[in-house]
């Protein structure tokens, strides 16, 4: 056996160093592990601070010993390359391993082991862990706000229907693919609007909505038997004719008044809330802010100075103020700007305010995409004899939008994360409901559980959105 210099690990004594280093490293991890999981202190005989620092020192020496370049052992080389490149990195790696080991037991015990899940009153929550019973009891409120319990199927049904209608794009055959843009930009938002404002809101208007649905379903079923040649005209005329027929000739108003048909109860928007309201607001703002933002992005790049200045003014104004003041404005200032007998619902005002606000950000993002396109694209389109609109719709915007997918996704994420701010106008989505529930005298002291619950929900939504945008970006990436 050759001479060993312990200050200089080398390849000749590889196995000595490897066994010694791994042993020391293993001991240090074991010490922390026992300490955190079983609250055993195997180094308790040492003075306080030494016992505290011992794992770090041992682990550091261990990692120092096994830091042998080109050892020929694959795993060791990988380890050295990734967490053990030099002394500084070794200490940081050790610290992170120890922090993770130390934080797992308290987190686990708070979330699961000591937490209470059963029961439906506060009495079961006596442990030191989380009280998930609280979430369980308040679940309906967190999801639906003050929406009456008996009517909540309406929200569920509309969301399921909208999700199904929204997934049409995945199942569309090539034949229908070219209509998808039209469908998503015009028809789908319109159906969503009908669903939410007539079905979730309810009231007598619901009948109009149900006639519309019946007419649409009937006409689609009959539509299968119509020859292709006439299909376009058929869908242009028949659904509307059916609707009018249903409304004025078959189920006319007397039936409703006679009580033969019982409509849906009207639920005012003040009672909407919880996560469903978050979805509703995000959904509509998302739909509205995109075209507005696109218009202002084009306006800002327009050749007409007046239109350009108006667009710049609009964009910079909304980008310069915080959303909370915009919502304040929509709540206290906006009613002053409308005729006295003219009333706009609180929720609608909110949606308008958030849409305009986010539209300014979308406009800036899209402008970035427009600027990134080479001039050649504009010139080529013009040389083909395209006008302004034709050029933008068929050549410029498809390319520009493809470029700014990440930016738009970020704006939409910001929009979803901004929805809790509607507490300013008194609408309570999930965070607002949490704050309400936490002040309930029967359930005091469970703020932590509520916020963790909401944080998990929002995190899942936002993370999924960002991953989806990443996929979309990869899908539409083209080499230029």
């Amino acid at each position, binding site marked *: 056996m050759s001479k060993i210099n312990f200050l200089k690990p080398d390849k000749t004594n590889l196995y000595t160093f490897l066994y010694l280093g791994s042993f020391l490293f293993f001991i240090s991890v074991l010490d922390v592990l026992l300490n955190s999981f079983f609250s055993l202190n195997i180094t308790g005989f040492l003075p306080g601070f030494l016992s505290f620092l011992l794992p770090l020192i041992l682990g550091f020496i261990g990692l120092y010993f096994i830091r042998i370049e080109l050892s020929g052992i694959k795993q060791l080389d990988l380890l050295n390359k990734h967490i053990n490149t030099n002394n500084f990195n070794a200490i940081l*790696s050790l610290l992170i*391993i120890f922090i993770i080991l130390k934080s797992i037991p308290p987190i686990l015990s708070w979330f699961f082991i000591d937490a209470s899940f059963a029961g439906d009153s506060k009495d079961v929550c006596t442990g030191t862990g989380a009280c998930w019973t609280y979430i369980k009891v308040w679940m309906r409120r967190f999801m639906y706000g003050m929406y009456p319990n008996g009517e909540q199927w309406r929200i569920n049904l509309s969301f399921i229907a909208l999700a199904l209608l929204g997934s049409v794009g995945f199942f569309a055959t090539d034949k229908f693919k070219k209509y998808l843009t039209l469908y998503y930009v015009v028809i789908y938002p319109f159906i969503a609007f009908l669903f939410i404002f007539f079905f979730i809101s309810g009231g007598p208007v619901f009948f109009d909505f149900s006639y519309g649905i019946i007419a649409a379903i009937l006409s689609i079923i009959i539509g299968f038997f119509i020859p292709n040649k006439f299909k376009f005209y058929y869908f242009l005329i028949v659904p509307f004719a059916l609707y009018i027929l249903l409304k004025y000739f078959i189920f006319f108003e007397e039936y409703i008044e006679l009580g033969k048909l019982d409509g849906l109860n009207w639920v005012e928007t003040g009672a909407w809330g919880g996560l469903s309201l978050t979805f509703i607001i995000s959904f509509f703002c998302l739909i509205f802010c995109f075209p507005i933002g696109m218009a202002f992005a084009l306006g800002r790049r327009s050749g007409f100075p007046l239109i350009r200045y108006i667009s710049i003014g609009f964009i910079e104004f909304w980008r310069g103020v915080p959303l909370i*003041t915009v919502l304040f*404005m929509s709540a206290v200032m906006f009613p002053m700007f409308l005729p006295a007998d003219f009333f706009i619902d609180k929720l609608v005002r909110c949606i308008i305010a958030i849409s305009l606000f986010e539209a300014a950000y979308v406009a800036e993002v899209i402008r970035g995409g427009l600027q990134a396109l080479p001039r050649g694209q504009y010139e080529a389109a013009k040389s083909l004899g395209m006008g302004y609109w034709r050029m933008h719709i068929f050549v410029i915007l498809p390319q520009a939008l493809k470029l700014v997918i990440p930016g738009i996704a970020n704006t939409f994420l910001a929009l*979803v994360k901004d929805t*809790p701010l509607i*507490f300013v106008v008194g609408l309570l989505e999930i*965070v607002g409901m949490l704050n309400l529930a936490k002040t309930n005298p029967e359930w005091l002291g469970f703020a*932590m559980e509520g916020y963790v619950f909401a944080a998990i929900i929002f995190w899942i939504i*936002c993370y999924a959105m960002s991953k989806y945008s990443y996929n979309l970006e990869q899908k539409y990436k083209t080499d230029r």
Partner: protein
Amino acid sequence: MNFKLKDIGPQLMTVIAVVLVFGFFTYNAQVNMESRGIDFGYGFLSQESSFDVQFSLIEYDGSHSYFRAYLVGLLNTILVSVIGIFFATILGVIVGIARLSPNYLINKFAAFYVEFFRNIPLLLQIFFWYFAALRALPLPQDAEAMFGIAFLTIKGLYVPAFIWQNFNIFFYSIVAAIIAIIIIRIQAKKLQETQGKQTPVLLISIGLILILPLLSFLIGGVRLSFEVPVLKQLATTSFIYEGGVSLPPELIALALSLSLYTATFIAECVRAGIQGVGKGQKEAAASIGLTPNQVLKLVVMPQALRIIIPPTTNQYLNLTKNSSLAAAIAYPDLVLVFAGTALMQTGKAIEIVSITMFTYLTLSISISILMNWYNKKIAITEK
């Protein structure tokens, strides 16, 4: 003919539409205000405000004017923004660099931090810190001292106050040190450009900034003493700390969540900036014989900063605007004091909301003008 109808038409239509909308709004506002008996004007700013603010940087009570209340709110907004920006920058730069670390664990840890805090709404984070985390702090009488001088309690953070004597001399000494450093830097650069001599600028700078203030203590007659907060009993169960500086829990929660949230975005900016510097640049710099430190200082950082600074400023601006969420936890910032309490008292909705918006707008636009100027200055001029 110089103008064409084709060019004028769309512009005219847009302008008419805008004018009509604004005219409609103004007309309605006039009618509404007349019918409700409200008069328009900013005269109320000099009236007595008669409400109290629990935390203010300048002297203020109910007998001061509404304008003074506005200033209190504005200063509080600026205070929380500055604290937030300071910590967000430090944290953001550390996390951003950690994201690029070859160390797998550090890299993933930083990535986890960014993904975690970025995807949770800021308001939720503020509520979490204020209503859940900070409520778990001890009562004043049970609090343990941090380093024997500061106390973190449920009622806020109490830190010792600095009591200066001859503060102005100390201040001048620091200013003198900074000026001297700037002069030395310029001289060193000149020396390097003309004669190729290297001067240890960093060492000299550190020395100057330490020695000059120290001298002001030794000969300038500057004295510094601390006023440590002391526990005082108000009633049998009610305790409070007296003396020192007290930071309310609202401020702590707000600054904490703002910096944790914004740091994720700054980290991404820093990462993008450093990654944006081409590998070839570093290799070229190394091949002409620069040391790794010089590569970082002279080649990588100037180019990375060019990419990092504009989006980071944007994040600073966002942080300032997000500080208006203070209204949700009753930290007396501009929105809460002015657009909340003052609006409720005076009922001057249009005036107050417009002043508040205008303040934020001025802040944003002045920073973006500064940014544009900076961008133009540092832009690479291509031939």
